[in-house]
């Protein structure tokens, strides 16, 4: 699985780009399976690091989406309403929300390398 080095990651399996785009990792989409529903906050909603900002549902499971940073929702990817499966097809390229946030917070998050190590420890392979 590929984790772009220009992103930062959380232990809850979200990625965030420097421009504020937030999505879930390839590992997360693969674990969830066929994604059928993404529930996202309204534009302007407050984001708190480590707290849920929405949910993603596969056929068999519901999973919370956790914000990597404190900030505010600038934009919501409305295309996911009709095509949630694009998260499976391209987790790295499919953002869910765009956040307005203080970029210094990125320092607190995992690098691609650290995230990959975290995942391999979590799954034992």
């Amino acid at each position, binding site marked *: 699985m590929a984790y772009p080095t220009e992103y930062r990651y959380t232990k809850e399996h979200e990625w965030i780009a420097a421009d504020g785009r937030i999505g879930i990792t390839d590992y997360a989409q693969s674990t969830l399976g066929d994604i059928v529903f993404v529930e996202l906050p309204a534009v302007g909603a407050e984001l708190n690091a480590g707290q849920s900002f929405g949910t993603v*549902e596969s056929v*068999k499971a519901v999973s919370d989406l956790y914000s990597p940073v404190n900030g505010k929702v600038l934009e919501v990817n409305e295309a996911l309403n009709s095509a949630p499966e694009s998260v499976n097809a391209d987790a790295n390229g499919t953002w869910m929300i765009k956040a307005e946030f203080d970029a210094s917070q990125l320092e607190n998050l995992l690098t691609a390398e650290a995230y990959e190590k975290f995942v391999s420890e979590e799954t034992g392979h």
Partner: protein
Amino acid sequence: MSDSGSVLRKTALNATHRALKAKMVDFGGWDMPVEYSGLIAEHMAVRTGVGLFDVSHMGDIQLRGPGSLDAVQKLLMNDASKLQVGQAHYSAMLTPEGTFVDDVVLHKLSDNDYLIVINAGTREKDVQWVRKTIGMMPSIHINDYSDMYTQLAIQGPKAIDVLRKLTDVDLDSIKNYWFTWGKVCGLYNVLVARTGYTGEDGFEIYVPSDEATSTRVWNEVLEAGKEFGILPCGLGARNTLRLESAMALYGHEISDTINVFEAGLGRYCKLEKEADFVGKQALLAVQAAGGPKRKLVGLEMVDRGIARDGYPVFTLDGKEVGVVTSGSPSPFLKKNIALAYVPVELSAVDTELAVQVRSAMVKSKVVPLPFYKKPKKTT
């Protein structure tokens, strides 16, 4: 059971599933594949083509010897005297309260020789229940053959075409819920049953549970099914398929706190049969009291949201009245569906109810069951 330790049980095909890169889960203490290529693809393969499931975690109890019919009649709610040799039917073991110990498929192998196929998670409990209920009857042999068979389910409209390539059995002559024995993949005397848990045509075969034989048969079925687009299917698709077909799952729609009439399974419960089967008196009392107070219904979500197992059900004016027992997106119908227990007076088709999905109340309506019915054959 899983609570006795962390070691999961494995079927003979465990290494095969892992080699196919299946996602594995703990299901009732068993390390089982939940999906291989993807739940939706697997589900659709069964609805439109064919899929292959390892269901070896299911248990098999054989009752044999003089008096077995009487024992079965006491143990199970359906009327086994109606079965002919080579025929099977849906039935259940009940508690004295008329609730479920487990649901089963009973096969009549020959006179006074029966095979009861039981659920994985309830295997030990079931075997003990059978022994206790039948009691000391020296003429009856009760054998737990659960670990002796690898049970494979070949399901879907093309299942017959796949299996035909591997057997000399005349499959067309086996009616739904009948079975026979024959040569399959070079193995003699294989039980071939036209049964399943998907709401689709299909077969279940029982082969010896050694790893080499099990793996060979699994691979031969996949190879034979290639031209029909066969997919190995996991428990994820098995669950969505049975849900669309509104088939009960133990621990969800049926349990030891839910009685036969509530579950809508009265048609498999023969109160008129002579035998005083366990649970009969309680059910007669329920019937005399005017029937059950709550009922299993099908819900279709009207507004956006997916009902899940355990979510509470409300009236539109906010009174909590029931609970979802199974809920999921329906891959074939492309709707969000659920089974739920609600008061009988709210069970009519088109009744509007709300399901609490996290913090939101999501509107749904009662729809007829099953959600999906396989198309009639047009030959």
